[in-house]
């Protein structure tokens, strides 16, 4: 009897001692400590730079309510656990784990600290109490960028340099290709995988290889778009950016691209923690929320194409056109969605196929 009694008492007292997540998370008098981890340098003019800009925006818009700190170059391994644990030991009660592979470490740390809120960029969470995922539908501006590229290409060959064949990246490859082929069905998008979020020598090599095989537009899904954009510029061809607006770095060849604006979302998220309204879940925002945007147009893009792109942007924002709506077939002709069918979150987040027009193997090797 004795040995049953003790665990029961322990369990009950745990419930009593442990306050609910939202209450423990903050106290209005003390600023909320917020920690950010990024996989690469925050000065990469790309993915990590965008998160750092979001953090700076957040800090300057709620200077009294929050205190932020950031650790860059955190590998997507258990190293990330140590950094997050140290942030929590220093008082962080909201942690942004911003890279794809920070998710598994964040899950482990989240399970150990029920009083800390975790925000994972991308991925899909299931059954977590103190971890939510957020992302903006980056494939919407990429679809529009694809449309612009379909109009601008002369060789009908476009190069796409991509990191890992994960759903997030395939969404862009497919949306870009669908967009290009919506105005030019001769377009072929040649995908090269680098197997790393950041490997500039490999990216430059892939860019040169794609240019040699006749691509006249390059785009990418890498942490930093800068290597590919500058290689394209040097070789006198067009580029479509990703993560940030690099118009000024490629004045001759820049077309457009996707750019993040995380700041307002980060303010919103911090407020959910401060006023105890945080709820776990998978939050996905669209282009009209403003966290993912179409970049500025380069000088070379004719006015008529710009207007057409802006009209398409409007159509997507109003929901008149849904990227990945049915009828949708993969490269092998397999029907994925019937006419009129709309894609679900799971459908998009488990993407492991490519649409017709995508050339190259689906696996990195």
């Amino acid at each position: 009897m004795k040995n049953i009694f003790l665990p029961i008492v322990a369990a009950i007292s745990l419930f009593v001692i442990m306050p609910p997540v939202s209450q423990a998370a903050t106290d209005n008098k003390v600023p909320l400590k917020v920690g950010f981890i990024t996989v690469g340098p925050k000065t990469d003019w790309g993915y990590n730079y965008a998160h750092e800009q979001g953090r700076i925006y957040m800090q300057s818009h709620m200077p009294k309510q929050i205190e932020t700190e950031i650790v860059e170059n955190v590998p997507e391994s258990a190293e990330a656990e140590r950094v997050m644990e140290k942030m929590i030991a220093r008082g962080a009660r909201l942690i942004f784990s911003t890279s794809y592979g920070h998710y598994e470490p964040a899950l482990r740390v989240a399970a150990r600290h029920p009083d800390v809120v975790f925000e994972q960029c991308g991925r899909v969470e299931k059954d977590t109490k103190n971890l939510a995922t957020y992302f903006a539908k980056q494939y919407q501006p990429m679809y529009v960028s694809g449309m612009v590229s379909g109009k601008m290409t002369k060789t009908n060959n476009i190069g796409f340099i991509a990191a890992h064949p994960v759903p997030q990246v395939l969404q862009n490859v497919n949306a870009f290709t669908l967009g290009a082929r919506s105005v030019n069905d001769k377009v072929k998008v040649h995908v090269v995988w680098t197997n790393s979020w950041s490997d500039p020598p490999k990216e430059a090599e892939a860019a040169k290889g794609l240019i040699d095989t006749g691509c006249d537009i390059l785009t990418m899904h890498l942490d930093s778009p800068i290597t590919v954009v500058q290689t394209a510029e040097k070789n006198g061809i067009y580029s479509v950016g990703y993560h940030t607006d690099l118009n000024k770095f490629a004045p001759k060849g820049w077309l457009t691209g996707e750019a993040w604006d995380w700041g307002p979302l980060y303010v919103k998220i911090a407020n959910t923690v401060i006023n105890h309204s945080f709820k776990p879940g998978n939050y996905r925002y669209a282009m009209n929320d403003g966290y993912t945007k179409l970049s500025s147009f380069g000088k070379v893009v004719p006015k008529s194409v710009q207007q057409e792109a802006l009209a398409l942007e409007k159509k997507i924002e109003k929901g008149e056109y849904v990227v990945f709506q049915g009828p949708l077939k993969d490269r092998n002709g397999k029907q994925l969605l019937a006419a009129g069918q709309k894609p679900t979150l799971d459908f998009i987040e488990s993407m492991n196929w490519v649409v017709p027009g995508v050339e190259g193997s689906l696996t990195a090797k």
Partner: protein
Amino acid sequence: MSTVSFLKNIRAALISIAGSLAAICIGLLLVAIFLVAVGRNPVETYIGIFTSAFGGSFAITETFVAATPIMLTALAVAIAGWVGLLNVGAEGQLYLGAIGATMIAITIPNAPSWQMIPAMFVVACLFGAVWSGVPAILRAKFGVNETIVTLLLNYVALLLVEFLIHGPWQDPSSSSWPQTMAFSDAAQLPHLFASRVHPGLFIGIVMAVFFAFLIPMTKPGFIIRVIGGNPKAAAYAHLPVVKYIIISMLVSGAIAAIAGFGQVSAIEGRLRSGISPGYGYTGFLVCWLARHNPLAIIIVSIFVGGLLSGADSLQLSTKLPFATVNIMQGTIFLTLLMFENIIQRFSSATVEAKTPEANI
């Protein structure tokens, strides 16, 4: 006689540790100039690093977590060093250990832990021993330079891991993300003191103490010292040189592999490419700083583990970019290596020896 040599051993360890400490202080002085230049208070910065590495039980356990693979790989380098070989391949042997452990964890995922853990351990050691066995045989039988072979095999090991996690072992549920499935609970080494410290740390310490007795006080230890001192003379004296070189290298690879086993089983819970941020190379450095002395290896790897783990505070409290971490670690490692010569002169005057092997 043997007690005298063990005491000598401890004295050599103390000299290496004191020398390393002095060198770290000079490195910190140099970094302080840089910190002042970028407008930070060096004293506050260093207190921050120290607190982040050794202040409080959480910080200390995280330092031990980083020190564990460094200690094991440093020991691996030392074992090869005692017979006069340069094993630069601890990083690759670590990865092979991780591959071996993972192979068991994912092929018999439902086995209970009393079968799983020993099987993972044994296979990890075997894989590591194979990886160091190749250069050992090439060296012993054909005189091929083991430094080059072990170094190049590191790259092969990394590519092998990449192949496995992108191909046959990729987690079917993780949608193309390069990693294996998560290990079952039975395949995860238990953690100690409610932290991430795992038994690998104690394996490292026990091994180091074991070798600190074996090498100066036993007959095999004597043979190893003779071979390390002069392999030609050893062969002339009909000592089994080939056998000892091969066995030493096999043991060396197996011990480095334990580090990989610990990383996948206790720290990551799965195999992925970033399981070691260069622990094998750091271990090589630590071994030379400790002058191949197993007792000094224990202490120096905890220093260096603290330096790696405490560096987080440069970004957290001092708000300096990551590049500062590289500047600090680079400067300190450089001063440590430069001081290595000075320490060696000082201690060879007292212990009458010049080669690190002979100090044991």
